[in-house]
């Protein structure tokens, strides 16, 4: 699947296109198929998100998982500070990142 990501303009937080807006959670990401350029152009003008781009991902039973490790690190947070990730209380959260 193709999903869209960028950084929130105000906070800089990593965000994912959920079909209507930008979510903090990669599991909310939707497959944009071949509409990536159209959505990115529109969102660029709306100026809610910085430097958005399309990436490849897969959806499995556990959720949406970006294909590349860099995007998986972006999706969860720094692997060396589990307390600062989006799932600080889930000791298994890192398993799908690396």
């Amino acid at each position, binding site marked *: 699947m193709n999903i869209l990501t960028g*950084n929130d*303009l*105000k*906070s*800089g*937080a*990593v965000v994912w296109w959920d079909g209507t807006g930008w979510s903090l959670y990669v599991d909310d990401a939707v497959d944009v198929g071949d509409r990536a350029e159209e959505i990115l152009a529109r969102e660029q003008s709306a*100026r809610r998100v*910085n*430097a958005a781009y399309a990436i490849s991902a897969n959806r499995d039973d556990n959720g949406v998982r970006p*294909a*590349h*490790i*860099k995007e998986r*690190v*972006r999706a969860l*947070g*720094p*692997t*060396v*500070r589990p307390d*600062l990730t989006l799932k600080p209380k889930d000791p298994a959260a890192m398993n799908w990142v*690396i």
Partner: protein
Amino acid sequence: MYQYDSYDQAMVDTRVEEFRDQTRRRLEGKLSEDQFKPLRLMNGLYLQLHAYMLRVAIPYGTLDSRQMHALADIADKYDRGYGHFTTRQNIQYNWIKLEDAPDILADLAKVEMHAIQTSGNCIRNISSDHFAGAAADEVADPRPYAELLRQWSSFHPEFSYLPRKFKIAVIASDSDRAAMKLHDIGIQIVRNDAGELGAAFFVGGGMGRTPMIAPCIRDFVPLDQLVTYAEACLRVYNRHGRRDNKYKARIKILVHEMGAEEYARQVEEEFAHLLEQGIEPPLAELERIRPYFADPEFETGLPSELDRSDPEFALWADSNTHPHKTPGYVSAIISLKPVGGIPGDASARQMHLMAELAKQYSFDELRVMHTQNIVLPHVRIADLHALWSQLEAAGLGAPNLDTIEDIIACPGLDYCSLANARSIPIAQRISERFAAKGRTRELGELKLKISGCINACGHHHAGHIGILGVDKKGVENYQLLLGGSEAQDTSLAKITGPGFDEAGIVDAVETATEVYLSNRTEGERFLDTYRRIGMEPFKEALYG
């Protein structure tokens, strides 16, 4: 240390308000990201993997307790309770909100700090010897000259859009503790046979994808021509630097392609021209700056004996102190490399403590080392045990300076958008491995440096052991390098062969140390043994 005059303060305050207005316009949608990006970068604000990252300049790594407290307050108020000290003696915050950035810069300005020229193709924060003004082996304190150059290079209109970023280091001893020859310009303050002070210029060094050691292009520039000569070096670079190719735009490429002799000739020609123009700041300016770096009032007649009755303390004192020019004092190094910790990270609580300890024990001064540790430069030997006790209680008492646990590591793929692989977990696993086996002391001085990409922020080219993280078809892979040094015996490390996975690289480092232990002769460091026996025995052990 240097204190802003009204001009310095006005410049920084004005810049804060300018950036506040630019940020407001960005948030209101009146500036696009393409328009705003160069403006935020000029104020040290990057967009990294997880958020905006703010890099704050710490000129030549020197700061006082008031400033360290302010850095801690920023970590608490605007970030997530910690900061990361970098290999350019700066500090970075990883979780900054754009809307907070102007307020942070305003808070910094209140303590005479800023983030100007911590990014962009300009002259960056000037680094220096972290023991400046304290070391027994320096011919002069290099910081007044670094400060003079800082003032010259700040907002310099001709050098604000160089072909590429530009890094300068200034030292004043034969022992190089600032990786001087791996800078765009390395300056060593020297004394000639007539007893006069001058500056030796080394130009065209650097790490990154094309590491080079800077050749000396002039061994003595009179100090009353220091700025003029630096200006000449920059002018020739600005004129001929490769603006057409980012990867060939650093001055090291120019010096290499032009040849050091021809580059030096053109610098001399420009220098002669500039001398006629009379651009050198008046000597009075240097004399105005110099008293800010005067020695504190050191006590005399202090005991130089160390009470070694506490073995853990004695271990730390032997490892983490450096000789001072004044009897009865040492420079004490606070390790930011606890076993299994993140190299260079300090919590706000730890920063506050270091600030208080500086006030209590070190004439209110701290230094950031390019090796990502903190120095209290002037500590009475008699106070060392009390100091160590407080450090130990706060997790800052690791006795591991210059050992395999004292690893330089860039933020890597955990934070950096340029990185290809994670650096920090590799550092953590290596320090844990060697600490658990109790081998750290046995190995002695062993400088290990890790970069998560070819840009080499972790100085892997200059490690006795270097590690470079690469992306191998979407999987992290680590190349092992041996034989680098960023000290006065500067050398560039060589790659051993095929890379390793995350677990394999830790094993490979251990294998390399075993080769060293089985081959070393009396008094040899890892680097010495490598230089004597060469790469082959290591390759044989690593790859069979």
